[in-house]
């Protein structure tokens, strides 16, 4: 079971738009909330009101400063959850079969009551996408909201991951990467979606849309001045009459 499927029917995953993400943590908190109330066991927090609070989260928002050689430093907010890799090392290292990748849709999951909490899958994941629950002592990870996307009780428009539904700036997109016509595939094609750490050979499904170039000139060139530009008030007022006459 921990062997990876050679290929999957669908490749479901997320596109995260770094040009649009404002780093608000909405997706991370709603993920925590959904998976606390709805998962097999809650996503716990240890020392919740103490000096060393820490809990399990399936999605975390990092903030990076990027300094181009020839432009001022810029900030990129960077949400990160499981990328549902095609070659998921977290799955193959798992000794129990708790970790698995589904052949139907490529979602990587942990069967919590099979997990022994050895932590090896977290070691194998380069992206920090797995977290040990401090109270439940089992491995937790993004489920791609598998308990939402197929839930027929939910209205169809809500059969999307909680983080996607909640993101206020619409920086998160969900879909099938195997379908070249899907919204996510098109976004990746149009905007040059990035794969994280390709050198790790994990073949992540999720893609990140890079920040667009900064300080772009406007689509149309700036307008020409409607009057000869002098900073003399008299000259300006002279022009004014003509301009007003044109108004009629």
């Amino acid at each position, binding site marked *: 079971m921990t062997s990876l499927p050679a290929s999957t029917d669908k490749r479901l995953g997320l596109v995260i738009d770094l040009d649009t993400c404002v780093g608000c943590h909405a997706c991370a908190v709603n993920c925590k909330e959904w998976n606390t109330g709805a998962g097999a066991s809650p996503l716990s927090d240890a020392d919740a009101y103490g000096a060393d609070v820490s809990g399990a989260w399936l999605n975390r928002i990092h*903030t990076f400063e990027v300094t181009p050689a020839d432009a001022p430093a810029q900030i990129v907010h960077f949400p990160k959850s499981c990328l549902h890799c095609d070659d998921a090392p977290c799955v193959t*290292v798992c000794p129990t079969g708790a970790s698995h990748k589904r052949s139907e849709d490529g979602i990587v999951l942990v069967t919590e009551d099979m*997990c022994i909490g050895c932590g090896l899958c977290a070691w194998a994941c*380069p992206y920090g996408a797995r*977290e040990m629950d401090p109270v439940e002592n*089992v491995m937790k990870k993004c489920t791609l909201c598998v308990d939402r996307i197929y839930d027929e009780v939910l209205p169809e428009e809500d059969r999307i991951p909680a983080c996607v539904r909640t993101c206020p700036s619409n920086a998160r997109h969900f879909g099938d990467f195997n379908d070249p016509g899907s919204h996510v595939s098109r976004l990746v094609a149009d905007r040059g979606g990035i794969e994280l*750490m390709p*050198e790790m050979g994990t073949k992540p499904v999720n893609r990140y849309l890079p920040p667009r170039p900064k300080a772009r000139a406007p689509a149309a060139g700036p307008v020409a001045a409607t009057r000869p530009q002098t900073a003399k008030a008299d000259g300006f007022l002279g022009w004014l009459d003509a301009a007003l006459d044109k108004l009629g």
Partner: protein
Amino acid sequence: MHPAVSVIFFTVLSGAGFGMILLLGLGFEIDGGAGRAFVVSLVAGGLAVAGLLASVFHLGHPERALRALSQWRSSWLSREGIAAIATLVLFGLYALVWMTTGDRPALLGGAAALGALVTVFTTSMIYAQLRTVPHWNSALTPAVYLGFALSSGWLVATALGGAATAGLWGLALVALAWALKWAWWVRASRSRLSTAASSPETATGLGFLGRVRLLERPHTGENYLTREMVHVIGRKHARRLRALALVLGCAVPLLCLALIHVTGAPAVLTLLPALSMIVGLLAERWLFFAEAEHAVSLYYGNR
């Protein structure tokens, strides 16, 4: 990586235990009668089992430990469990025959020895397979694990049941193991994360824009990932520990072995280098984890 005490003890002790099993299975000579053989076998098995137990109780759900044997087709950890159990069973049978008949069936011994070799190898592969930890991700890692298992196992076995005084064999094994470790260190010093071509730039995919630096962690406190995988140790601390590992794990044993060899002192004195080496190896193993950089640290401010 976070150096968990249980894992350090597990790898060092069970290494020595399986090293002993390997030697005993191959017919390592034990002086004295069945009593001695029993003690030595018990220690060998005991070390291996103690290590295993330490790692089992380190699990979040030890009660489900048996499940860990199921994925031998893909998981080195699963293979390790199976190999360890098989080896212990074989070795138990071997010891039983030995104790009861005084005979050491070579085939069974050979099988146990092979099992021990495989077990140590599978243990090492748990680490060596991880591309996320470039320090570990090398063929030298199994070599080092095997070297230390053999040499420390040899020292303990010799101390407890050595027929002859510690000979050149010991010197050679210890020296070889540390030579491998030295080579490992040399490689490690050149194989920071960056040799995996990884950097904050590749981790974020933002390298095309410029240099990438963490400004804010997702959370202000620590979390599982930072505690487990973003361990940072002081340089000075690391240097001291490495010196300790080299002195106790290598220099002291070599010196003792040489003295024992030259003076022809009784084998039981090998206990001193054996213990010293194990303490040295605990330091070495602590560093093995503590100095290992995990790719995740790139998301947490490491370069």
